[in-house]
């Protein structure tokens, strides 16, 4: 592990009209660590991930991933990360293997290596036996595992996980975090994740940044955060840092689609 940060964000600002989603955020992520972004709904977690993954340009400030600016070096940056979005992005009408294979083609992984990587990863994520089944027959946990496996296929340097355990049962969540912990050891990949489950961040992350109203309010290891706030659990530290007000967002088009999707998929 080098000391050179794999991700460097300096004074990043992102506004949508009159709303400032990310307001002067700065942090570094070290190569090989598991870094958690912890914050209430609408705090700016997903917006930050979208800026780092080339999907949004910052209004001002600078971002770097492996020394490259996502806004100006889109293609090079895209080769260097894998991402699991909050909403599923698998093709449920295709098999697990086909989803993996298409990803490999999109990332220009040579055929031979593609086959080997698909096999290794599907075995690692305990999906090998089901590789020829359509994804729509998978459980929520299996789908998430497949998405992570897919995100790792092109051996990225950074893996972004945007709320990877949202909607999963405790067993699946437990398994998910065991896998994620192993990842940084086996694959040597830096993991950047967001969650609003404090216990999970506490358990899995090397360092945690607490973000609220688009600003970073604290950053450090779990024990440092507890010390800083004089609390004995991360949950208490989180509430001490972000307050206890419930965040009501107005529903966006995406939220409405999510509602429809829930009904459609029973």
């Amino acid at each position, binding site marked *: 592990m080098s000391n050179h940060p794999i991700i460097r964000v300096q004074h990043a600002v992102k506004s949508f009209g009159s709303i400032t989603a990310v307001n002067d955020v700065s942090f570094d992520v070290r190569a090989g660590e598991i870094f958690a972004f912890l914050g209430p709904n609408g705090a700016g977690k997903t917006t930050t991930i979208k800026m780092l993954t080339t*999907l949004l340009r910052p209004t001002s400030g600078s971002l770097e991933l492996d020394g490259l600016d996502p806004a100006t070096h889109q293609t090079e940056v*895209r080769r260097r990360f894998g991402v699991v979005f909050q909403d*599923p992005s698998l093709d449920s009408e295709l098999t697990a293997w086909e989803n993996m294979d298409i990803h490999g083609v*999109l990332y220009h992984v040579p055929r031979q290596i593609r086959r080997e990587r698909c096999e290794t990863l599907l075995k690692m994520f305990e999906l090998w036996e089901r590789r020829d089944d359509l994804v729509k027959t998978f459980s929520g946990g299996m789908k998430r595992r497949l998405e992570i496996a897919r995100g790792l296929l092109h051996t990225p340097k950074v893996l972004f996980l945007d709320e990877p355990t949202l909607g999963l049962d405790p067993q699946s969540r437990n398994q998910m975090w065991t896998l994620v912990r192993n990842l940084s050891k086996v694959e040597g990949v830096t993991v950047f994740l967001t969650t609003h489950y404090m216990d999970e961040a506490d358990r899995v992350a090397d360092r945690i940044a607490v973000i609220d109203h688009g600003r970073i309010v604290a950053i450090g290891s779990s024990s440092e955060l507890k010390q800083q706030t004089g609390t004995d659990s991360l949950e208490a530290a989180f509430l001490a840092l972000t307050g206890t007000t419930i965040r009501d967002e107005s529903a966006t088009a995406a939220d*409405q689609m999510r509602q429809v999707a829930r009904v459609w998929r029973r």
Partner: protein
Amino acid sequence: MTVVFILWLREVKKYLRSRVQIVASLGGPLMYLGVLGFGLGPVFRRAGEGSYIQFMAPGVIGMTVLFTAMFSGIAMLWDRQFGFLKETLVAPVPRLAIMIGRTLGGATVAVLQGTLIFVVTLIAGFRPVSVVAVPLAFLLIALIAVIFSALATAIGSSLKEMQGFQMVMNFLVMPTFFLSGAIYPLEGLPRVLGALTRVDPLTYGVDGVRGVLIGRTHFGVALDVAVLLGVGVLFVLFGAWRFSKIEA
């Protein structure tokens, strides 16, 4: 190129797997062919226009291609929020390759569906003037498919909500079908209706297919092909531009 190919293959594979959907989507065209075709047949014949099935079979094929191609736009809207589209949008490949792969895939599916309906019309009694005409007709059908698949891509890229697609169906797809001369001859129409049929690209598609298959054409096959090619280029460019503007 492999990127275009794999995305094309994905659309085709998914189509071939959705047996239920294939059969279900035959329902609409069958209805038009069976009910309108045989129902209006006697009137059409009495008016001295010959066999209505002969006349409307190319129209029903055109309709099938239009509906199938436009449906890929709905699929894309869905894909955008809950599916595979995001995966392709963060991949290190040009947006254009993704758009072309999807559009060609959607167009191929539309042509396959059109082929199926073509077979059905043959069973219903449709007889093209010659066997040689059939491959030529399919070139025109492919053009229609590309035009509307590209338009669907443009619309799918521009809309954010499912509800928007209902509007598209009612105010774009249905009028495109009804104004195309698929079910009535273009000769002697009232001025306004006549003018409207002329701005509908499907009109030239159906007219061209009809010209090739039964030798009856209003504009002439050459003009039909020219218009289709022109509109095709325009819509593909438009679709590519809208697709490049998608924000995930």
